[in-house]
């Protein structure tokens, strides 16, 4: 079946309402292509989306999907994957969803290392609410709610992931379609929690972190002799605040995903018509 699947099968009949030129178009295309390329089809794929411009992605893609509550997409994805190890789970959200309201869940999802992919569409701004600072906004980034800038350093999501025990950390750029697709594919194929932060420029509210800015400043790790299995090298890339990178920054090849560590590998949706066979043993335990 997989050979017949084309990435357009993952497209819904709803036209995106993202602003023309929004990075989210490219981010989504790469996700759909990576899913098709890895042999998935819409009926065995589950997309979980957060709230914000990025959260609309579940509507524009065709698959099983849940567009949930702000900041809680990762726990939902965790539940889907543990109940259905046979289903491909991809969680998508924005920098606000993931690193602000959902930051607590991010740390623990990384630790848990459930075998799913997390795509953060990072535009360093709150777009849907018309331009307020996000947790990845620059310290001096002026917005309607931070007229002199947030005056606090942006969150470093990769550092947060590394400190939380991540097994796969990557960065891509929505406009570099081939590299973006390739990086998402690697995250999908990774045995464990595949985390990809995607630079997905907001063309309406962010005139600093623009396509041109990223095009000019991005260093591709594939061309920089970077070994993603080298923890110390990954740490150096992550803590280097002078440059922007794209590529797989860190991958622990010894990663054992949560399902495997906990022996949660059965489809939980299939249950008997009555109490399970040995349930009477449970009553006997109370003698």
């Amino acid at each position, binding site marked *: 079946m997989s050979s017949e699947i084309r990435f357009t099968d993952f497209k*819904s*009949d*709803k036209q995106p309402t993202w602003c023309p030129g929004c990075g989210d178009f490219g981010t989504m295309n790469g996700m759909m292509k990576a899913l098709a390329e890895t042999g998935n089809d*819409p*009926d*065995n*794929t*589950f997309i*979980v989306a957060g709230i914000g411009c990025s959260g609309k992605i*579940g*509507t524009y893609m*065709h*698959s*099983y*999907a*849940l*567009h*949930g*509550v702000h*900041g*809680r997409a*990762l*726990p*939902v*994805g*965790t*539940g*889907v*994957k*543990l*109940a*259905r190890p*046979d*289903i491909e789970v991809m969680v998508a959200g924005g920098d606000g969803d993931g690193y602000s309201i959902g930051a*607590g*869940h991010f*740390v*623990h999802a990384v630790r848990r290392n459930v075998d799913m992919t997390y795509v953060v569409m990072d535009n360093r701004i709150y777009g849907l609410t018309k331009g307020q600072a996000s947790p990845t906004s620059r310290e001096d980034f002026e917005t309607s709610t931070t007229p002199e800038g947030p005056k606090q350093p942006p969150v470093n999501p990769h550092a947060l992931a590394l400190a939380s025990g991540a097994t796969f950390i990557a960065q891509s750029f929505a406009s570099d379609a081939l590299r973006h697709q390739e990086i998402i594919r690697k995250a999908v194929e990774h045995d464990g929690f595949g985390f990809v932060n995607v630079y997905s420029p907001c063309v309406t509210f962010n005139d600093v972190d623009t396509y041109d800015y990223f095009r000019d400043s991005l260093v591709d790790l594939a061309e920089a002799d970077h070994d993603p299995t080298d923890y110390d090298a990954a740490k150096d890339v992550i803590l280097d605040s002078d440059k922007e990178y794209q590529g797989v920054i860190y991958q622990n090849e010894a990663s054992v995903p949560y399902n495997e560590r*906990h*022996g*949660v590998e*059965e*489809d*939980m*949706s299939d*249950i*008997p*018509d*009555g*109490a*399970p066979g*040995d*349930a*009477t043993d*449970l*009553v*006997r335990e*109370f*003698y």
Partner: protein
Amino acid sequence: MVADFNWAVGGEAGDGIDSTGKIFAQALSRSGRHVFTSKDFASRIRGGYTAYKVRTSVDKVQSVVDELDVLIALTPRTIDENLDELHEGSVIIYDGERTTMQNVEIPEGMVGVDVPLKRLAEEAGGAIMRNVVALGAACAVADFPIENLDSALEKRFGDKGRKLVENNKEAARAGRSYVAEEYDQTFEYELETTDADYVLLNGDEAIGMGAIAAGCRFYAGYPITPATDVMTYLTGRIERFGGHVVQAEDELSAINMALGAARGGARAMTATSGPGIDLMTETFGLIATSETPLVICNVMRSGPSTGMPTKQEQGDLNHMLYGGHGEVPRFVLAPTTVDECFWKTIEAFNLAEQYQLPVYLTADLSMAVTEQTFPPDAFDMDAVEIDRGFLVDESTVDDHRTESGGFTPHEITEDGVSPRALPGTVDGAHMSTGLEHDEQGRRTEDTEMRVEQVDKRNRKVETARRREDWSPREFGDPDADNLVITWGSNEGALAEALDILADDGIRARVLSVPYVFPRPDLTEAIETAENTIVVECNETGQFANLVERDALVRVDRVTKYDGVRFKADELAEEIKATLIQGVEA
């Protein structure tokens, strides 16, 4: 009143009070006696005092009473705390060699039994068995065959090695022999044993067992008193049935994980208490509007805020009924007894899937931590029925697709229930969202579709009202002029209060209601009665308010919110006083 025996062990937190009490309760249960335990003593002084109380009889016991026949006091304070319940002839077992107990005064009329607990325990193999020596002493005082205690010790320590079990048995015998030799008197108690087989469990355990019986495979939770026992019970057991327990980082995560598992097609549950319910309310509307079947167990404790975390209250009823912004259909089930916790859990899972909505399953602290005996067939696994509702498979999915091919998980139907396709079902792929949506789950702000979806969701409640049985349990005198209505764990105390009231010539009809929403219409019963009293553990009378609104009448209230459950004798007094007040008015 049943001829019963009331026993307690008390001391400081860390003295092993809970496990000592549990061993004695287990021994009684294994001897064929009924048991009802409580850990909810009124603590008049704040601090580390803790006690475990056991009421036992050959007949069924379902309440706590203000009586104590034998008390194992590990601290002087244990005696002070229980003075009101001790009576002429009560026996106090203590260790007079313990520094703090050397000058202890046994109240007049009571019998002090001074046993060197620590010394005898050391002789048997270790001071840690001090409490077991006391249990042996209690067996002597209560004329209870020590073999039953052996059996309970085997259960408690069996997996820790033969030697430990034998040492404990020896410690118990040392306690018994000491009392037999040093106290050359017959105490007035004799605990008769029977051939009956009982199981001993609490409400949290009954909920956990009910969940497994119902096919629940996924549990996510965050530890919180008094709901943690549900999680502890499931951990290590649900795995045997292909399930899994996740300890989430917080309640926000727990409910979203459970939601995810339910979207995946698993029967999923989370359990928490008031503070956790507050957090979970964030996701509640999403569950309802995405029409996801989910069981949310709320083991209530005293609020608001952190309140009194280890104390009884039934104060969350309004929150469960109305919590969350917007108008959100939900069911609220409230089992009234420990065994009903098992059956209502199964019912909650069925209702959640039949009507594709969130179901609150609520117990309260008293019921959650009370160990009670039941015949094992009270939990007959062969009687468990599973109904998964309107699920489509590959052969029926085509009946629920639009012309353009989209599956319709929110199809407008006559009964309000829409087809459900689990992930992996070919051609069933669809979106669900917290946004208002069309039949395919796609966002819409179309005015007609909005109204149709709201109506459809609410129609499920009307369908359920019609299709399911929401009857209350009835007991007492069906023709009595006095009607007493209650919900949650007060039923046991009320059943025994009826006997006490009968001695005073007061008769009452009792309706114990396990369904808060939808709930039975009690109008006719209220109109037939001369006096109606609603009994509950909160200050404002939250259930009484519902009853008044349903029946458009005023009712009397007996409420309690001091953190302690109703006791049978106390409740009888309150009911009597309310009736007399009514007459005088």
